[in-house]
């Protein structure tokens, strides 16, 4: 059975690129672009991995992650966070909130795919 990833991202072109890359690796890809409803979307989708943008309309990636970690079923869910802000403080904040991997945009495709493989052993 294919592994399931949920892309929480609001940039159309980035969704396009990530979807292409992950599908080619054999992932089942779903996308969600609204921060405010992201948590319930994750609860409903029950993915094996979440790729979470840092800056989202409605609710920030950090807030979503924090809420997620408070749910017993999702405390251990692998989360890869992507940010375009590139500030050191953001990484620390994300690690405190319980992120599994933190990457700054732009990234190389190989890099992001390696990270995904590390997080979810197929």
């Amino acid at each position, binding site marked *: 059975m294919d592994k399931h990833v949920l892309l929480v991202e609001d940039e159309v072109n*980035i969704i*396009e690129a990530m979807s292409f890359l992950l599908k080619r690796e054999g992932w089942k890809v779903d996308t969600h672009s609204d921060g405010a409803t992201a948590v319930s979307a994750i609860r409903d989708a029950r993915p094996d991995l979440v790729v979470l943008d840092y*800056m989202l309309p409605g609710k920030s990636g950090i807030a979503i992650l924090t809420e997620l970690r408070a749910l017993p079923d999702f405390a251990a869910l692998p989360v890869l966070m992507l940010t375009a802000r590139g500030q050191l403080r953001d990484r620390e904040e994300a690690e405190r909130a319980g992120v599994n991997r933190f990457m700054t945009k732009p990234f190389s495709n190989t890099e992001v795919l390696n990270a995904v493989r590390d997080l979810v052993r197929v």
Partner: protein
Amino acid sequence: MTASLNLLIGVSLIYVAFLFAVAFAAERAAVRGRSGWLRTPLVYTLSLSIYCTAWTFYGAVGYAARSGMEYVTIYLGPSLVMIGWWWVLRKLVRIGRSQRVTSVADLISARYGKSNTLAIVVTVMAVVGVTPYIALQLQSVTLALSAFAGPPAADGSAGLNMLSSGFWVAAGLAVFTVLFGTRNLNANERHDGVVIAIAVEAVVKLVALIAVGIFVVWGIAGGVRPMMEQIDASALGTWQVDRSRWAALTVLSAAAFLCLPRMFQVLVVENDDERHVQIASWAFPVYLMLMSLFVVPIAVVGLNLLPPGSNPDLFVVSVPLAEGRTGLAVLSFLGGFSSATSMVIVATLALSTMVSNHVVMPIYLSLKPGGASMSGDVRSVILRARRLSILLIIALGYLYYVLSGGSGALAAIGLISFAGVAQFLPAMLGGIFWRGATRVGALSGLCLGFAIWVYASLLPSFGQGAVLPASFFEVGPWGIGWLRPYAFFGIEGIDPTVHAVLWSLLLNTCVFVVGSLLSFPKPLERLQGAQFVNVFDHSGQARGWHASVAASEDLMIMAQRILGAAEAQALFRAAAREQGMIGHLPEPNPAFLERLERELSASVGTATAHAMVSQMVGAASVSVEDLLAVADESAQMLEYSSQLETKSAELSRTAGQLREANDKLTQLSVQKDAFLGQISHELRTPMTSIRAFSEIMRDAEGLSAAEKTKYASIIHVEAIRLTRLLDDLLDLSVLENGQVSLNPATGRLDAVLDHAVITAGASGDGRLRIVRHKTTADTMLTTDMDRLGQVFINLITNAQKYCRAEAPQLEISVRATPDMLRVEFRDNGTPIPDAARALIFEKFARVAEGDGSGAGLGLAICREIMARLGGDISHVPQASGNLFVVQMPRAAALAAQ
């Protein structure tokens, strides 16, 4: 004889030098705080002996030789006062301490509402009253000198010039008084050096008189019994005592003892401890008794031994001289010299205090511009006034001496003086025992009594016809018989002295009582009256400078307030340890008090510190000079403190500015962080897409042609987005820094709008319908047309991007006034929420969902441009849709960038 005169002058000079040394040592000890031995009951008693002046030393014998036992009255009056009325003295001393009284004038003035008029009257009376007395001392010393010089030779060369020697004696006394009386200004008018010097002189004169007495009784008469026989045989024993004179003179000397300025000085002002009065009340009469013991024997032996016509006033010196006892004669001279000098010094000190405090200082203060707010050194002015007063008073004494011709019996002059100062008695005693006494009563009583004294006693003393015409004495002034100086109201046959004393004191008292009953006291008088009469209710325990431990506690409380708790406690503890006391409170001895005063004065100023400490320890009031000095210091401190306040205000202003600047910087830093984060995000997002798709196209195999085209166009769009973003950032940066160069041109607003609509329309998807409401008004303006066009394009593009209506529409209309042009952009999209409206003109503020190509810089740029063009852009809330309004002046003040 000249040799012995030179010897005498030499011995006198050595004696004066010795007195200087004693006084100087005493002052040094007082300064160091080791003045305990200076202020003992014995010293106090001996200092009272200035009552016994040269008049008593020489004159008593002369008096006895002339008038028999009457001389005893001079000793009897004071003895009665000391024994029977010591409680009056005690009250005076208590009042003097609690009111910080500095002189008789001060006492009377303070009692009657601090009236300076009264003080001046008393001062003048005292100066006039005491002047004959000072003359008397000059006279006695020069007489004694002349006894040594012997009778004038035929050519007059060897004889003594009475006037010039009188002058030199006066000059010497003046110098001594100035040196010792005004070396430093003590706020409580105490003179340790002077007091100890006169105590020494008291011993010298007693020893001298007793030595002469012993020589006369055992050396000449041959023992007590032969002496008694000789006295019985002499005329003295047979002289009848005139009862009225006896009573009058006793009363007079008693009154003078209380009223004489110099007696007041040593009795009250120099008093250190009330308990000394009790001891002096028996010790001083003993001293007087010893002084009077040999008066009669010396007088009798002198009368028998010396040729008839010899001056009995000089028997004390001339008897030993006649017997060839030069040494004894010199000792006797020193005794008289001591009596004279101590009296003159203390009397002039007391008078100069009065003159400078009540006459010179008020005049100085009223002449000085600014009145009481004087800023000079008050002390130096007071000291100069004192010195000047001393010279004037002694000069006056010398003048009287010259005018009265140096003649007349010593006792007569002394009695005149006594009668003069006795006029203070009613006002003084009335003041401390009768609350009903008023200023009016005191003033009228004093003036009348004084006038009678001048008329009936002082002026006649120059001799009948000298000042008052002889006819006054025979038929009265202008023939008014009842005003004859020696026979008021036609009552004749009374002794002139008794007559003057009787009438002056009687009328003085009557007028004082009647005047007091008829007048109403002012509030201050009433208050002072109560404080004086009930002084024992107000001033608590009798205590000297050696106060109780309770005073230590008070001092501690005060010191803590001024020095701070820790420092004050440390000071007190250290002092207690030095004194060997257990606990933290030291004995408030003079050494400690001075140290405390010094410490305090560093904080509050010398005068204030002294006033505070004296107030607490001595239960004393504060004198006018103290207040002046305190006011002076306070003024300086106020000035200093207002300077500090200004400085502190400046500092807090600066601190405020710094805080503001810091807040601004912090805010800026936060803004900068947010801005950098935004920029990073806006730059990295397109780059992410570009990198991802370029890698896909490079690495992925088997991409379809359609996929390749799609991905390449994404890369293209994102590259354009990046470029536009960079352009906007640079544009905004230039606009914000004010470095933008504007190109003003004159043209029609319509043309700019038309151009903007065309340009924006070309880039849009064509869904937005743009409605232009053409205006007929003149739309000419002068501004930077390109920049204005940029704003319009931005607004149209925003409407294209964000208007989500079914049929998106933008209405553009222009309003023109003579000065301003106004362009409205009204769309039919979703209104911007209230919360977001405040932010839309800020950088990176995106509220509406768009196609993701905007970085949120457009409206920020518009705002900056409009500000540069002298106009503005605003969003006006609408019920539906959005309205952006752009306003600008027709002629932009472009220079105002």
